[in-house]
């Protein structure tokens, strides 16, 4: 099996500060990988470099494209990279308002990606938008409401629908449950797990919430000061952490 994403020696510096340094890993189809670490550990920098939102200073991000196999998304042309961003990739922001068009109805938000890849039949676009709203548990009669009229959890689910409507293969998520109530978080996690299984998605999830990665991620990468200090199977890393930092991280979680 070929990896969907192959990352080789990826580095990003901010002046002489390290953003992330010498990160390498393979992500296979259907795998969900968590990246954990405290604020400033470089996990968001890494995610943005992977998703083509930030230009790395060194290294390769090879994505298995449908047409041409493994391609380096760092060196590919911008139109190609943006095309990936609209089709095979999805990016779920921590704050829904960064990932939604707040002035556009829920249906328009979901439909945008379809229209961006050439859908020109209003009825089809709307039907698909409604179908996706239902899949993320938003009632059909909210299709013409703007996201500003939605609760935080609904906005986040709308953002997910908007991202998944074109059937992407790789989803980047930046703290997808951050800032939500715990009960809303649980619902979102359940939804994400179901979608990941149904659609065979691969995902990279950045979070500082170890409970979230335990439930969502198959694999885990632990970052500290821009370096990956440990990686492995999620439950193995959490239950039998090898690196001192991971041990500290795991033991620092408040028990409920």
């Amino acid at each position, binding site marked *: 099996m070929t990896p969907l994403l192959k990352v080789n020696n990826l580095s990003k510096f901010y002046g002489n500060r390290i953003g992330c340094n010498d990160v390498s890993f393979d992500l*296979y189809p259907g*795998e969900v990988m968590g990246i954990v670490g405290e604020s400033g550990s470089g996990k968001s920098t890494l995610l943005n470099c992977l998703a083509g939102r930030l230009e790395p200073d060194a290294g390769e991000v090879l994505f298995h494209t449908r047409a041409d196999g493994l391609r380096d998304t760092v060196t590919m042309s911008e139109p190609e990279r943006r095309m990936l961003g609209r089709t095979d990739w999805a990016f779920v922001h921590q704050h829904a308002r960064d990932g939604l068009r707040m002035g556009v109805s829920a249906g328009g938000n979901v439909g945008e990606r379809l229209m961006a890849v050439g859908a020109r039949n209003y009825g089809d676009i709307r039907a698909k938008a409604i179908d996706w709203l239902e899949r993320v548990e938003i009632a059909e009669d909210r299709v013409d409401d703007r996201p500003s009229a939605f609760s935080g959890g609904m906005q986040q689910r709308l953002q997910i629908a908007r991202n998944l409507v074109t059937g992407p293969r790789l989803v980047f998520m930046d703290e997808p449950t951050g800032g939500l109530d715990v*009960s809303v978080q*649980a*619902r979102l*996690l*359940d939804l994400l*797990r179901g979608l990941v*299984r149904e659609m065979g998605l691969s995902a990279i999830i950045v979070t500082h919430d170890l409970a979230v990665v*335990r*439930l969502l991620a*198959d*694999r885990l990468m632990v970052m500290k000061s821009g370096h990956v200090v440990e990686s*492995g*199977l999620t*439950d*193995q890393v959490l*239950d*039998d952490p*090898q*690196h*001192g*930092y991971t*041990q*500290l991280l795991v*033991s620092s979680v408040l028990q409920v």
Partner: protein
Amino acid sequence: MIEIRDLSKEFVLHNQGGAVIPVMAGGSLSVAPGECVALVGASGAGKSTLMRMIYGNYLANGGSILVGDVDLARAEPREILALRREVLGYVSQFLRVVPRVPTLDVVAEPLLNVGVGVEEAHERARDLLGRLNIPERLWALSPTTFSGGEQQRVNIARGFAHAFPAMLLDEPTASLDAKNREVVLGLIEEAKARGAAIIGIFHDKAARERVCDREVDVTGFAPKAVA
């Protein structure tokens, strides 16, 4: 089916002065298809540690753990995940699920993960929940709100949903009443009969004698220096 050779394990506590705690050395064990082996030994002797290492939950420092043709001491995460999905089942003592998910879906999930259709998976889940005497009115609720015994039975139903060729059972009959204990022992016997290789921890001596073919005392795997 399960072949363990010269297994060793130590914990290094980096935040406590780098203390090294060896817990296992020279662990060896072999389980054939259709065989059930009980791990015995005093509390703290390393039964659960060994189980967790076999499941890939704890990292082995040396030796090999072959389940089928995968060596868990060396495998990539995705190989271990595939093994857990298809081959190696684990019934832990505690149910760990996403809150809010209905019991029926919790039990059906392992089947969905191996590509069984939703209808068929739910049918199997209903059958198991029925056998384990979980009242039908609870099936649509999340098990997170259930009593300890009910949670344990949901956990067992989930563990036995897919016919794993190899299974790890951690105290499957603990906190069960006689009737449900009987059901669980029946499930274990059925699994043996279809050729599953099973490793279990049973404090319940009668249960152990009924379903297990052999006992392995893990005290023998303790590191010599410390023991």
